């Protein structure tokens, strides 16, 4: 078996979630490299969209930032930031990748602050950026997180980005567009989805080496655990080679510590 580190594992698992011929809202980092890996393997026409304006670029070099002229190399079109979010409102950009400091059992995400006073937080984070918009507008949001108890919390300190709010129909009732919301949560231990009725987070797959116990231990709320759970295959030699030699030879993304 080949060795791989956590970013490599996450990139390969995320890449599996990427479907061909769909639009993906991508930020910098692992989401981007996942889409690129998918494009080199099973989804050659997965189309990346950047909120900074670029549509479907070739991405011959990895950008450090989504606002970096590398994001527009041989793009299909370059539009304004408003245009991109409007395209996502009308449903063109079906998938969005998101991260955060905390997630709860309904997929609500916090990227704003830790603490109980918004005006005097224990830790202030960078803020929503486009996250609230991507999570509001995209049909299927894919959440990437480290699987830790302090991140998988019963109640996020601040709902930056809407998941299913209080579960059930609460998201729709607040007026969010029907058929939008979190679709998958991918961590270093597992892949989760959301139960259809309650909208509660549910274990879907284990990552290689992980166990249900370790997942439960590292989750700060009650996860729905089905009777039978598959374990996903580890990254293949081909995938790792693509990541290391073609997509990220300088280790910009796969050479970093995971933290979000």
């Amino acid at each position, binding site marked *: 078996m080949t060795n791989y580190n956590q970013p490599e594992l996450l990139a390969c698992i995320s890449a599996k979630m990427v479907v061909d011929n769909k639009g993906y809202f991508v930020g910098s980092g692992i989401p981007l490299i996942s889409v690129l890996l998918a494009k080199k393997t099973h989804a050659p026409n997965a189309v990346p969209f950047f909120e900074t304006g670029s549509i479907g670029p070739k991405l011959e070099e990895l950008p450090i930032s989504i606002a970096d*002229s590398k994001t*527009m190399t041989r793009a299909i079109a370059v539009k*304004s930031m408003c245009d991109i979010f409007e395209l996502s409102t009308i449903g063109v950009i079906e998938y969005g990748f998101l991260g955060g400091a905390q997630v709860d059992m309904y997929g609500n995400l916090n990227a704003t602050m830790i603490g109980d006073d918004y005006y005097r937080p224990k830790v*202030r984070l960078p*803020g929503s950026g*486009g996250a*609230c*918009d991507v999570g509001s507008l995209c049909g299927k949001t894919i959440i990437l997180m480290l699987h830790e108890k302090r991140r998988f919390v019963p109640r996020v300190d601040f709902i930056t980005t809407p998941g299913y709010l209080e579960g059930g129909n609460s998201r729709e009732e607040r007026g969010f567009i029907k058929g939008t919301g979190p679709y998958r949560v991918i961590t270093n231990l597992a892949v989760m989805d959301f139960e259809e009725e309650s909208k509660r987070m549910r274990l879907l797959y284990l990552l290689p080496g992980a166990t249900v116990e370790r997942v439960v231990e590292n989750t700060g709320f009650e996860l729905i655990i089905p009777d039978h759970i598959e374990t996903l295959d580890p990254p293949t030699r081909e995938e790792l080679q693509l990541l290391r030699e073609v997509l990220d030879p300088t280790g910009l993304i796969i050479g970093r510590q995971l933290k979000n």
Partner: protein
Amino acid sequence: MRILATGVGKLIKPVPSSDQVQQETRTLKSLALTNKVMSAKEAVQRYVQENDYVVSELTGNVRGPMALIREVVRQGFKDLKAAGNTSTLDIDLLLQAGCVKELDLCYVGYELLGTSYTMRKMIEEGKLKITEWSNATMAWRLKAAAMGVPFLPCRSMLEGTDTFKYSAAKIAECPFSGDRVCVVPALRPDVALIHVHRCDIYGNAQIDGITGSTLEVAAASKKVIISTEKIIDHDEIRKNPERTAIPYFMVNAVVEAPFGAHPGNMPYLYDMDVEHYKEYINYCKTGEGIKEYFNKFIYNVPDNDGYLKLIGEERLEELKRKEQIRYKYREE
């Protein structure tokens, strides 16, 4: 169209009535073709006032008006308000220098390069008044002002999110479709700082690549200062009128500033100076060296030329080369 909810955040810049906007346009935006070229010093002295709400038009590290930002810092403002949307070093510098006390905030940070320790520290210590937004809602707030309307509806940032709760937006019901919409108030900044690839002496400006919210910001703002990589002949503008991103009458001052986006990226011209970013972020993180950074690169240099000398021709040439290799296919 009932209002169903209202965010608790402060509307840092109140929405002007259209009457006031038209009157300000008549006073501040002339259709005369006058030469507006001046130094950054003069432009900032004339068009930025204490208490102004400032927007720095950029998308992250691309095409940031850094030479103008450094001039604002140099002039020692203490009480500006600003928009922290897709912001990086621009807002970080203004915050670190103590220029800005209130911020509409959706993002200040450096993505893969790290966080804005400056913003983080100020908020954690209660030294910065903030109102929360998302990138799209801020972009739409500027678009509303550019359209001359007091608000726009959108389908993001609805009730249930704390982003909405701590914003100054409202929730309403569409009288046609029944959809719930988030209604965002127009944002009309007092002054916009914009860096462009080229413009003429009147301010007709062209940009290449990522556009962000250029036209929206220019049209939304009461006063506009443009810095430009180079000044071109007016006739060049008239040869390709489709290329004019900002028409001259929106512009109050034109400042020539080659490498004016450094250490940011200028599409097709020069790459990001990643090392410079890393150094600055590290100074902020450790708290050590930050005073020296400001003295060296801002306070002790008179202008952009002085700044570029410190960066050094060799580094600048290297950044040019890196960017231009990337786009040689445009010539193919």
